[in-house]
């Protein structure tokens, strides 16, 4: 059964305090439960999944005139929220592992925006490791992305103005969030909580605005990932398949009913006795 929390009215105002009050209210409504549960921090909420849509990838610019043999492109690798919200709500730090030919190939980024800019000439796989806050998750999460500097074969000569952008959409899923974590983030715009109606946007205080990527310098190159297209295509495909299945089933049942030459046909009632 869904947890009572999801039915509680969303917090009217932003900030941690009202959320706690709402939760406390919800807790009080549960029979035989102390309002201040000492295990609240570690209690896992089953059947409640909280996910954070993210986009990660690289943007690389050809250096044009300034390009040398060993320094032909400048590029940025990053991980951002799919809606350009602030990921530091769950992410403590991000570690980018570069090719060993870079000095200090292990680059740690402790603050949003979680990105790294470099320059070079070669394409290689970058390992992006997410470390979460202690109340979110003890385990780290690894992602991999292939840095692409050169455009596709038929794209013509390189230009310094138009970068090569490769982005991947994914979602970070926490299947059994602790109650504390859940309460903290359930209303955050970066989070997706199923069965919860979209809560009011938290009032964007000036500090918070800084950490999202909405006004990022590269935001003009960010791709817009819309699930609508894919859903549409999938729905259409499913319809096709279902129609085909129905057609074949009809054919199958027709064959069953087909009289065969060697049979002594004594009447349908007798043969399809099971009917």
């Amino acid at each position, binding site marked *: 059964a869904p947890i009572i929390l999801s039915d509680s009215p969303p917090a009217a105002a932003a900030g941690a305090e009202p959320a706690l009050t709402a939760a406390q209210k919800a807790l009080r409504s549960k029979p035989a439960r102390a309002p201040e549960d000492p295990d609240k921090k570690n209690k896992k909420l089953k059947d409640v999944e909280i996910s954070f849509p993210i986009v990660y990838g690289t943007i690389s610019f050809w250096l044009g005139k300034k390009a040398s043999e060993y320094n032909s492109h400048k590029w940025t690798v990053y991980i951002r929220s799919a809606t350009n919200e602030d990921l530091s709500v769950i992410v403590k730090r991000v570690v980018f592992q570069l090719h060993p030919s870079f000095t200090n190939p292990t680059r740690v980024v402790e603050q949003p925006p979680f990105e790294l800019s470099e320059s070079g000439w070669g394409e290689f796989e970058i390992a992006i490791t997410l470390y979460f806050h202690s109340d979110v998750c003890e385990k780290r*999460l690894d992602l991999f992305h292939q840095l692409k500097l050169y455009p596709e074969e038929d794209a013509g000569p390189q230009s310094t103005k138009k970068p090569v952008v490769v982005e991947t959409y994914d*979602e970070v899923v926490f299947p059994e969030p602790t109650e504390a974590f859940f309460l903290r983030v359930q209303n955050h715009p970066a989070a997706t909580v199923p069965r919860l109606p979209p809560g009011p946007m938290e009032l964007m205080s000036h500090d918070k605005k800084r950490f999202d990527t909405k006004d990022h310098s590269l935001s003009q190159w960010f791709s817009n990932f819309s699930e609508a297209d894919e859903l549409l295509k999938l729905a259409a495909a499913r319809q096709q398949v279902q129609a085909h299945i129905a057609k074949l089933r009809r054919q*199958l049942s027709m064959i069953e009913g087909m009289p065969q030459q060697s049979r002594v046909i004594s009447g349908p009632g007798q043969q399809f006795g099971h009917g």
Partner: protein
Amino acid sequence: HPPCRGRKTVRTLTLARSTGVPVLLRPSSMDAKDILGLQKTSFPSAQEKKPRAPKEPQRKPDGVSREVYALTGGVGMAPLMPTIEASHLKRRPAVEKEKVAWQWLPFTSSARTDNLQLYHWVRVVNNVPPTGDYDFAKYNTKVDVLKYTDEEYEKYLTEPTWSREETDQLFELCQRFDLRFIVIADRFPTARSVEDLKSRYYSVTRALLIARARSFDEVAGNPLVKETFNAAHETERKRALSALFSQTKQQERKDAEVLAEAKRIMESRAANKNVEEAGAPTSLPNAAVPADGVSPLSNNLPSSAATHPAAAANTSIPDTLRMLKVYLRTHALDQMVQAVTASAGIRMIKRVDQTLQDLGVNLKPKVPTKAVCAEHLELRNEILTLLNIQKQLQNKEAEVLANRESSFTEAPTTPKVHAEWVTTLFSLCFCVEDI
């Protein structure tokens, strides 16, 4: 012109008639020219005294005949190892170190109980004939058929259906024919089945062994004591075997069809079970369904179709995912796709992927949200169902075709048997609808 007297003569002639102009030493053309009296080409005189054999660019190897070498030019020849040394051929009848002779000698065999004197060829080395028993005596195996005394018979071995005389006769025959029960049954004076005879023999021997042993444990290891002869089982087994052997071709085909059907059902059920991780118990039909056991099969199917849960693949999470505190949506989708296609073969997986491509759907969704992943998984499931039904249809059509062909050559089956068969298929059809 000198008459053509053969090569040799002509050649000598040619050499002798050297006119100071040196001649080319190639026999055939020289002879011809000599005969015809034509002009001979000239070469420096140094060559005159050369040996008769024409000087070839390189010496012909020994293992190759002249013609072959001339033809091939020495290219592409196998390694010229001698296969048979000519020197060895002469040497064969070598003198052995020992003196071996073959003698016609008498022998005895421990396997013979009469005193028949037989003879055979013996390889005698250095005048010492071989010793030891006849080589083949060891193959004369004998069975230890126990002999009981009157007292023992009275005490342990009496049996209402067997008289003393019969038991004695049985044991005598067993001894004589080394427990070849088919022969014994044949020779047995009163009519008794093989199982009956075996039963009596084994029970008597077992009782004797146990009675004679000081303790049960002593003979507990003996196979005669460990296992008892199950006459009923044997009779049944032989009956079944002969029934199978005398099956008509059509019956055989029917059996195969039913078994294949059962197998397919079980497989599809296993596949569904994998996906669902259903707690609902699915009643599995007996795998070994004989031709006349078709009705239990059809009875089982509707019930399992009913318990078949609605395909809710997105609520069943593979165990590997449950363990993770955090994971990526794409990883979760991969795991679930693998779980679905686990039971399908590699060919099926490829066909599903191909179908997805044909429908214009990405094999891996570009925007893997929860909803998109769920839809994607559903689509994959539906494609699997589609492919399975396609296969069923193909099989059915092939079967109809085969039936049609066979109906011209074989006697028609009884309506009753056929009705049962059709019933199964029809109920199967229903279940397919329910899924």
